[in-house]
């Protein structure tokens, strides 16, 4: 089990970019995929794509992020890849629909964000669970919705 006690920086930083690029050519870059649920944790165990068992224990002022460099030496690097986050994007057709949707989203303690006139709900579990709640709410069940990821959620 390899202990990781800090994030060294971002793979995009000039100090790391060139070295990691070189290691990529020699096959020295290992990736650890972190789910959206696990991303805020400072202590967790994960297994990298190449089977390295990682024990991550970050200081409380650090967090994981996409591209975080966890290890970098002469022969290898370990870099975080964030799992793509999925959102349920609602497009209310009236102020009344928007207000009702916002009210229930708050009551259900869903993590949300806004994009123009859309309200996006982070899918932190099986989508069936979200549909089960929505379909039980008259006034919300009929609001147009689609699942979006990445830049579409911006």
């Amino acid at each position, binding site marked *: 089990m390899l*202990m990781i006690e800090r994030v060294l920086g971002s793979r995009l930083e000039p100090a790391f970019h060139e070295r990691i690029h070189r290691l990529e050519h020699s096959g020295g870059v290992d990736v650890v995929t972190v789910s959206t649920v696990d991303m805020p944790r400072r202590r967790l165990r994960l297994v990298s794509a190449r089977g390295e068992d990682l024990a991550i224990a970050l*200081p409380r002022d650090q967090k994981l992020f996409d591209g975080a460099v966890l290890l970098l030496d002469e022969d290898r690097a370990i870099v975080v890849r964030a799992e793509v986050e999925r959102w349920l994007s609602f497009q209310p057709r009236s102020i009344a629909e928007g207000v009702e949707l916002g009210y229930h989203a708050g009551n259900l303690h869903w993590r949300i964000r806004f994009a123009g006139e859309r309200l996006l709900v982070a899918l932190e579990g099986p989508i069936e669970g979200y549909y089960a709640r929505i379909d039980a709410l008259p006034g919300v069940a009929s609001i147009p919705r689609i699942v979006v990821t990445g830049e579409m959620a911006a």
Partner: protein
Amino acid sequence: MLERPQGQKSGRLASAARIGIGGPVGSGKTALIERLIPELQARDVDFAVVTNDLVTREDAERLRRSGLIDPERVSAVEAGACPHTVIREDPTLNMAAGDDLEVRFPGLELVIFESGGDNLASTFSLDLVDWWMFVIDVAGGDDIPRKKGPGVLKCDLLIVNKVDLAPHVGVDLPGMLEEAQRARGERPVVAINARSGEGVDTVADMICRAVLFRP
């Protein structure tokens, strides 16, 4: 066995792990902590506790009087509002309490945050804790897992307490545990009796593995 990257010093970690214990009123959160204390001491874990109450410091005083732990290692947070507000929406009071314990006890490995009793929608912010448990109890009704509250679904470990009461309250315990496991998929469920200590060693082992990286 733990190894560190080249050039990094060995020794204890820079900051303590933080875990949460949530659950409804009366489900046995404080009783679980009272049983966890000797289990963690037996595993040589250096730890402290932060309790949360609505408008009193009742749980902290109970632990301080227990004789199980140095009273200085127990801090209290008064939520003053719904308990989930200070473990999820704005956990800064608890974060400050954890920071204070880490300053006062250098080398601390683990801080346990006990939420005030709340409802099935209660969850912890991962800004506050690294891993958290949700405690329900048999006497609260065997339909709790079927209700699929966020606390039951999202916690890292679901604990079903007071298993000894099942025959007295007409609860089918194997059925309740089966439904809890079905609701949570592959995530763990542990049955305990915090009064007798049954099952609490399993909980202590899971804490040690999850956030202290013990074998």
